[in-house]
């Protein structure tokens, strides 16, 4: 019942007002808060002290490794090891290798520019106002086509730029390309699969069920191996599909199966009365789905969808098994340099920061989107 649904997640006051019913100066108020919340009981006091001690130990260690004992260029390997902290000199020497991998060194501005272009496209698409009107949607579509064209020209060459074969694309651009193209494509494929799985047409329904169950039953690694080894056997000899494209297709197929099940969950949460309302207004299947059912279903599954996208972003590192160098692969390549023998923490720390930043922004964006939609629909079901 629409009108009876109460708003969920009412904020419950977690910090109680100070016990004395008068206004205190800020310092006193802060002390009172600490006293009541952190040292309210013996058990609380013990927990607080243990946590403080742990924070201190970890903080001291981090500070030592990251700053105090760390050495920057022109430190040598020897000096770094003697100091005992992070060897930023190693990272200063290798960061371009980690970011752009085997891409020709003097051409590194191209993947850098491609990344910036890609990031602007994604960020522009994340702003709701970009999609607010029909004209803007047309613009966005055009901008995406142009932008993707730009990315591909930048990366592969042409128009006066020297050509760079796809097998040399590596590092962060490869990871981002696999992830973003994968997410966008698997989103649309997953919607079709989810609708197909609930279709009233038996052939469509069974094809979708078989697809989803088979793909879900196979590990991603084996799918990547198949894409790498078996497709050349199946395709005619003169058709050469780059490794990247094959891996990309394997990713899309794999995650579409999972995402389809997530979206199906959302579709099932839409009450039959919404379908009845669409029918009663004379709306056909696609009109109902596109304008009424899917917008509601997709909103419900935003958290699980973003969960899957984060997994997808990280799982791109599995392309390492078909000898492509993603961000993790290039970090491994960096540590293999005999000049910096034995160092690896700095490289992994560097890519970990990148991974965390990207994943955290994704989950932040999903929370923000949920709040935005929630506040607009307020009390409604």
């Amino acid at each position: 019942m629409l009108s009876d649904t109460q708003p969920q997640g009412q904020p419950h006051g977690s910090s109680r007002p100070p016990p004395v019913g008068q206004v205190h100066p800020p310092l006193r108020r802060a002390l009172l808060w600490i006293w009541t919340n952190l040292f309210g009981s013996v058990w609380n006091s013990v927990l607080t002290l243990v946590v403080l001690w742990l924070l201190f130990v970890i903080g001291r260690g981090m500070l030592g490794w990251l700053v105090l004992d760390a050495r920057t260029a022109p430190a040598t390997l020897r000096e770094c090891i003697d100091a005992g902290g992070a060897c930023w000199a190693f990272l200063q020497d290798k960061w371009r290798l980690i970011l752009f991998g085997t891409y020709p060194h003097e051409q590194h501005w191209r993947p850098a520019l491609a990344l910036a272009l890609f990031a602007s496209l994604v960020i522009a698409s994340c702003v709701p106002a970009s999609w607010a009107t029909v004209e803007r949607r047309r613009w966005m579509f055009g901008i995406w086509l142009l932008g993707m064209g730009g990315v591909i020209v930048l990366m592969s060459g042409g128009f006066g730029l020297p050509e760079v074969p796809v097998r040399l694309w590596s590092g962060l651009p490869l990871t981002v390309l696999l992830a973003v193209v994968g997410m966008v494509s698997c989103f649309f494929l997953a919607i079709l699969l989810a609708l197909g799985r609930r279709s009233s047409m038996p052939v469509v329904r069974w094809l979708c069920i078989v697809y989803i169950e088979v793909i879900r039953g196979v590990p991603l690694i084996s799918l990547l191996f198949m894409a790498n080894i078996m497709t050349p056997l199946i395709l005619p000899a003169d058709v050469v599909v780059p490794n990247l494209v094959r891996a990309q297709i394997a990713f899309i197929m794999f995650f579409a199966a999972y995402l389809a099940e997530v979206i199906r969950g959302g579709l099932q949460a839409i009450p039959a009365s919404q379908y009845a309302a669409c029918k009663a207004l004379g709306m056909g299947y696609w009109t109902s789905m596109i304008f009424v059912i899917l917008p509601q279903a997709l909103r419900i599954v935003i958290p699980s969808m973003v969960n899957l996208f984060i997994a997808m972003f990280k799982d791109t590192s599995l392309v390492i098994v078909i000898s492509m160098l993603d961000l993790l692969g290039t970090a491994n390549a960096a540590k293999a340099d005999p000049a910096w023998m034995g160092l690896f923490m700095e490289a992994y720390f560097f890519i970990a920061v990148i991974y965390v930043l990207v994943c955290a922004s994704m989950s932040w964006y999903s929370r923000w989107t949920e709040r935005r939609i929630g506040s607009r629909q307020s009390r409604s079901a």
Partner: protein
Amino acid sequence: MVGQPLIRFRNVNKWYGSLHVLRDIDLTVRDGERVVICGPSGSGKSTAIYLINGLQDYQQGEVEVAGIRLREADGTAHDIRRHVGMVFQQFNLFPHLSVLENCCLAPRKVLGLPRQEAEARAMEELARVRIADQAQKYPGQLSGGQQQRVAIARSLCMHPRIMLFDEPTSALDPEMVGEVLEAMRDLARRGVTMICVTHEMGFARAVADRIVLMEAGRIVEDAPPARFFDPSQQSPRVRAFLENILA
């Protein structure tokens, strides 16, 4: 005022599995007529009106709307629906769209009206149910009575020849029933053919041309209000039903 037969049930039977929900229904509704269907719950009255726009199928007999024989399976229901509006017990507004968007969606996507024209039409219908000032709000921000009036406006935006009401006031708090019935009375004055499943006997008496009483899937009475409410002419079944809902 009342014209050609518009809706015709001929000997219609319907089962849910082994449950026989409609038994030998014969009913004709003429153009411009206002018919109220009442009866105890489970008597098949809602099911009967769901056949008129093909939201439910039937197994035997024939339902004809505007001369078209209606069968969900034949795909004929789809053509009929743009001429038949429906108001549901639970409103069934689209919660992710604003009131205005709720009203514009079908006219734009089904009738192909341009946005401006659809919005003008929507504002006109919203004004008629006296809720134009809420056009930018979302359904969840409105009261039940307001939501139901939006639902009525949304249906009317398709300019239907027939309006079906499935217990439009039974999900409402008592103080909101009046505003919805008022909107329905306005509509009745416009000459739209109305079939209304309701227990609001005051509304039935004031507005209906005929009142149909159903019981256990059968039509047991079909009479104008004057006869339906006249103790000297009404059948024992009608008397029992009226006593029940008044009690």
